[in-house]
């Protein structure tokens, strides 16, 4: 695994002579160049991050109110854990993640493999396959909302036509059994382009010499895929898996536009729950508590995933 590590740290360690005047000058220069970034990051990322921990323990409303601000310790957290809707939301997001990981990553991997081949119009095709990813999610949702229409939307008509009328129209977004699955379909289609690009980059990073050597050793295409391509892509797999999981846990836009968490809370997600608490019911403290919980969950998942994948010698 050391092979894949970036060369930057070793360069930095190269030599460290005693501090001289010019050295101090260089440090000052570095510090002054770092300062704007550090300042902005602190101001807009780190401070708000810790503020949300503080807000989570107060009854802070969204907008100023005549009632006094109070420090209420963990009341918000207790309430969240007692709210069935929160658990439903968490369960829904887990379901979503469980479905979208194979669908989206599989789709991205397959198209990347396809577009890595030498073929005519390769760059044009790459651009076309990437198009959904640069289309705004809002636009995609509106279009797919039309496709999903019940009972006479295009999807239902195609299903009815292909099955000769055997399949009854499906209420894609209005049936609690189907709504989340429909969201998975459209999300995977919209977002797979990004993972595809990452996989393409990963594929290009595998040196041709390895393939040549494998060929000389008499490996066929399937063997080359399993013993050269797959090991070469391990860091890419880890990255894609992590980023997709984290994105999946933050599911919001599609739900907010298409189903607003319904029907029967079957598409309620943690972020949607948070926005509802913070902006509709104007309970900023409560919403902050949800965001802290979400942060902890995502952090744990990311750590566990890393450990698991490391165990498989990635």
């Amino acid at each position, binding site marked *: 695994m050391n092979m894949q590590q970036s060369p930057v740290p070793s360069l930095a360690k190269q030599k460290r002579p005693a501090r001289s005047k010019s050295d101090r000058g260089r440090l000052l220069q570095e510090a002054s160049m770092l300062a704007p970034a550090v300042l902005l990051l602190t101001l807009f990322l780190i401070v708000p991050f810790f503020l949300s921990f503080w807000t989570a323990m107060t*009854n802070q409303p*969204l*907008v*100023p*109110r*005549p*009632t006094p601000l109070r420090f209420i310790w963990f009341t918000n957290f207790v*309430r969240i854990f007692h709210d*069935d*809707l929160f658990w439903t939301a968490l369960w829904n997001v887990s379901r979503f993640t469980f479905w979208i990981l194979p669908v989206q990553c599989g789709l991205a991997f397959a198209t990347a493999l396809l577009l890595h081949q030498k073929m005519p119009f390769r760059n044009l095709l790459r651009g076309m396959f990437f198009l959904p990813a640069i289309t705004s999610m809002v636009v995609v949702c509106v279009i797919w909302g039309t496709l*999903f*229409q*019940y*009972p006479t939307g295009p999807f239902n008509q195609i299903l009815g036509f292909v099955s000769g009328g055997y399949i009854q129209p499906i*209420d*894609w*977004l*209005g049936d*609690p059994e189907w709504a989340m699955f429909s969201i998975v379909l459209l999300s995977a289609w919209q977002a797979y382009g990004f993972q595809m690009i990452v996989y393409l980059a990963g594929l290009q990073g595998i040196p041709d010499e390895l393939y040549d050597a494998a060929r000389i050793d008499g490996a066929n295409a399937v063997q080359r895929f399993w013993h050269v391509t797959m090991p070469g892509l391990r860091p890419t797999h880890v990255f894609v898996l992590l980023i997709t999981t984290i994105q999946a846990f933050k599911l919001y836009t599609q739900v907010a536009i298409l*189903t*607003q*968490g*319904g*029907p*029967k*809370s*079957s598409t309620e997600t943690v972020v949607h729950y948070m926005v*509802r608490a913070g*902006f*509709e*019911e*104007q*309970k900023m403290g409560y919403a902050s508590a949800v965001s802290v919980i979400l942060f902890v969950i995502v952090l744990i998942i990311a750590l566990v995933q890393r450990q698991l994948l490391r165990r498989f010698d990635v």
Partner: protein
Amino acid sequence: MGNRLLSSLILTAAMSATAQAADTKVIHVMHQGDPAGVAAIGAVAKAFEAENPGVDVETIYAPHDAYNEKFSAAVMANQLPDVMELDAPFLANYVWSGYLQPIKPLIDKDVLDDMTNSNIVQGTYPVDKDLYAIGLTDSTVVLYGNRKYLEEIGARIPTSVDDAWTREEFEGYLEKLSKLDGVKWPIDTFRGYGIKTEWITYAYGPILQSSGCDLIDRTTWKSAGTLDADACVEALTMMQTWVKNGWVVPQSAGTNQFYAENNPAALALGGHWFYAEAAAAMKDDIVVMPLPKFGAKGASPNGTWIWAVTKTSEHPDVAGKFVSFMLKDKEYRTFIASKSGYPGLKSFAAESPLYAAGGAMAIAYEQASKTAIARPPYPAYPTITSAFMQAVDEAFNGGDPKAALTAAAEKIDEDIEDNDGYPPFGDQQ
């Protein structure tokens, strides 16, 4: 050379900007509406500017379903508009939070004298009994019927609010309609508006009230014991049964099934604004009936988007003048009337034959004085409506109505507790 041109350009721009700031009063007007409504308000602003030199009206549009979120954002950024449109049930929350100022001293007297009772009620804050907002219109929900279908099943057609259908009649007709050829769904209750929309509390709340309960007890301001009481559970179970029986147009089928080709829906529990589009397609085939009486008394909603002046306004006098101007503006009134607008000013009622005796919507106007019940004028309203929407969605998709309403009542009471009972509301008794 190029540089000099650029700097002189900047200089002139800066000079004209300061010159403008010196003698121009700018008022910001925040509103919602469909594209035609936005255009109509834009036209009012232009006309007002033409009549009042030195005044600049800047309109700010915010979409209907996210209006309160956008307003909160404006509050946080300390950028409140001068004039704002607001949904009547949210008035108590806004006044309690200290955003609005009493509007009576700012509005022309002839406009104030012109208000209907219901219009005064929707703009009044119950604590100090002062007027904080004013509207050209009010609103209601009626039961629209397809004349052909109703004649086929031999339904009795009520001619006044007093002889509205009873629950037995209503459900009997729904059942008959469900078996009638050509009827795909006996009724559209406009689930197509979505599950996160004020429509739910606005239109279904009166069904609870007619059944003998309410969203919240309006003297003790407690929801538990009222919203989760047997009468409410029974009412929500009744609606759930309609959905279960397949009698109600599903959410994903849109909002036009009543007048779409071949009229798949036979009845429509729709807002007064629905009349304009439905009548355009169906002409005389449309029957307007009062909302059914589900219990001892009838109930119907009221309240709509009305205009207020914010406390932070730098030019409240100009803001008030603008509101008065808009409510009297001929073209604006013509536009609202074209949308079958429900009159909230007496002079506007006189110009609206649709709502006058003998007019197609006369029954809708009759409801205002006989059955209208305002949504709870209480600062916890944002939570009340959000919790109730959640409960209705749960029940309509097969969830247990009792459990759903209990959860909603708990959520509402929790919010009230968090705000110490919204004083002075708690200390009133």
